[in-house]
């Protein structure tokens, strides 16, 4: 168990700076999810903590100690890779035991720890198989097992679920969360999937072009996004952005008005819009409309409610308290 601290962490590849100074304090046992679109630097950030990328500037601390120049093995971390990185020529047992074997642990202890982890992950009957004889979900478990047996103080996950199909992803997501709760190990988890971020995180970091736009608890980030980017990235369907002139009482400097799809409703009066098409998802229906001013919006409508037909002219309304305003830089105002 350990804390992880990042101080003004920066990374450049040649002349291109990809991480522009990130500060973060991870508490002992906390589950932190780093989320952002591809190319935002989230994987690079994780790899700097892992010791697989050098630190250009700033500091990485694990358990209060500066580890900038330590080898990955000296950092007491264990990483789970996106493609699992299992060794094809080794059995599941050998894959899980590899780290312990290198550390020179006695054989009896290795066997005991691998079996313990295998039991936890329901892999006991697969220990003699090779990775290619396993399904995607089982390989994923082996990769986690390999990290667990080492009893590290920090787990690092690099998009561990992105190679699984949708159903399995939901299941593994729950398993990872339960496992982390049970073991209480500090975890950093990188993903581009905002649903994963919302469900797994104690706190999440939303990254945008090498900067941390916002750090906070998932629901706090959802309800109170600090930038237009965060507002648009977290939440599905994304927040509707309209020109701020549509509100009479917009604060000075405001350029964009943001309203979540579930906060828009059909009314007798209000902004006039034309229905472009509707998507019935069962429990809810998404209605895509085009406003007179040329902006488009999505309304999340309970499926029990009335659904306007395509091409119909409707009126939209929302509560003043649900509005968010952003300036021309995309910052809240």
């Amino acid at each position, binding site marked *: 168990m350990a804390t992880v601290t990042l101080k003004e962490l920066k990374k450049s590849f040649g002349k291109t700076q990809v991480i522009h100074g990130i500060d973060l304090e991870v508490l002992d046992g906390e589950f932190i999810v780093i989320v952002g679109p591809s190319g935002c630097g989230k994987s690079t950030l994780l790899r700097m903590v892992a010791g697989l990328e050098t630190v250009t500037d700033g500091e990485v601390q694990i358990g209060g100690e500066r580890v900038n120049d330590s080898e990955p*093995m000296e950092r007491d971390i*264990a*990483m789970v890779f996106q493609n699992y990185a299992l060794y094809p020529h080794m059995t599941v047992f050998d894959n899980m035991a590899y780290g312990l074997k*290198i550390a020179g642990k006695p054989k009896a202890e290795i066997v005991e720890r691998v079996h313990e982890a295998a039991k936890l992950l329901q892999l006991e009957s697969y220990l003699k198989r090779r990775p290619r004889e396993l399904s995607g979900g089982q390989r994923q478990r082996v990769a986690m097992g390999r990290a667990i047996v080492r009893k590290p103080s920090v787990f690092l996950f690099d998009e561990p679920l992105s190679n699984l199909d949708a159903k399995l992803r939901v299941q593994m997501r729950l398993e990872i969360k339960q496992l982390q709760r049970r073991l209480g190990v500090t975890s950093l988890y990188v993903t581009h999937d905002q649903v994963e971020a919302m469900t797994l995180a104690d706190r999440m970091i939303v990254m945008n072009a090498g900067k941390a736009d916002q750090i906070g608890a998932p629901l706090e980030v959802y309800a109170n996004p600090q930038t237009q980017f965060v507002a648009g990235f977290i939440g599905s369907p994304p927040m509707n952005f309209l020109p701020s002139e549509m509100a009479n009482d917009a604060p000075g400097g405001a350029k964009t008005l943001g309203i979540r799809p579930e906060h828009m409703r059909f009314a007798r009066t209000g902004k006039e819009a034309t229905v472009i098409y509707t998507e019935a998802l069962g429990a809810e229906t998404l209605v895509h409309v085009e406003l007179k001013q040329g902006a488009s919006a999505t309304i999340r409508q309970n499926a029990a409610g009335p659904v306007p037909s395509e091409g119909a002219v409707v009126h939209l309304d929302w509560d003043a308290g649900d509005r968010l305003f952003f300036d021309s830089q995309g910052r809240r105002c």
Partner: protein
Amino acid sequence: MSSDRSKLAFWLLMAPLLIWLVTLIILPHVGMFLVSLREKVGVREYETSFANYAVFFNEPLYWNTFARTAYMSIASTVLTLLIGFPIAYYIAKLTRGRTKTTLFLMCLIPFWVSELVRTFGWMILLRETGVISNVLQYLGLIGGPVEMLYNDAAIMTGLVYTSMLFMVVPLITTLDSLDDSLIEAGYDLGASGFSILREIVIPHAMPGIVSGCIVVFMLSLGNYLTPILLGGKDSLWFTGLIYSQFITRFNWELGSAFGFLLLGLSSLIVFVGLKLSRQSLGKTMAQ
């Protein structure tokens, strides 16, 4: 009807390969084997016996040369692997894009000229009045001209140089398919660079290593030009003996027997090599 047709198509497609195999490989070998079993007892009088093979085992020069050829070929294979592996690793893992293509092409360039020209190139460098000798004299490092040709080191240099590409190409192919994250996971799990090489990189590259070694070994064993030109008269290469039996001494019977012994030797060594590395021929050739 349709199955007859597809059968016909199959045989037609196979025909060029079969004709090639039968007329150029199998028939000559059968003929050579029959010739090797003939013992000359008088003018145009032959008897079937293993006398030619007996000659080989009774004459120390022959089997000494045979053993020397085998061990020199193995040595050149090992040397090629030791030099080729870092090169292949560098090209496959540490370079990208254009640099990678350029380096790969640079490995290919020597093969645009014929083997003869390449070997003469080495002769120009190594001979007594050659480039290296002259440069060393000019620098005052040696007193008089030095002959670097016509020894085992010269043969070895030529063999390694000639077969390097055939080692590097299969190695690059297998190393390319090694996911970088496997190496990173090794570091993450606390392995040192050496144990990653031994336990992760080499096991993964094994099919490439074995197929490269087979090709290089066969090429060295069957090489005629390089040992003769760089090793001179005393090169004692087995293909040289076969040549002299056929061409100089018109003793086709003994030459054929030698040829078969060489075939047997190379098959045996490749078989042992595959067993030792626990690879199968099929797996290796699928590379």
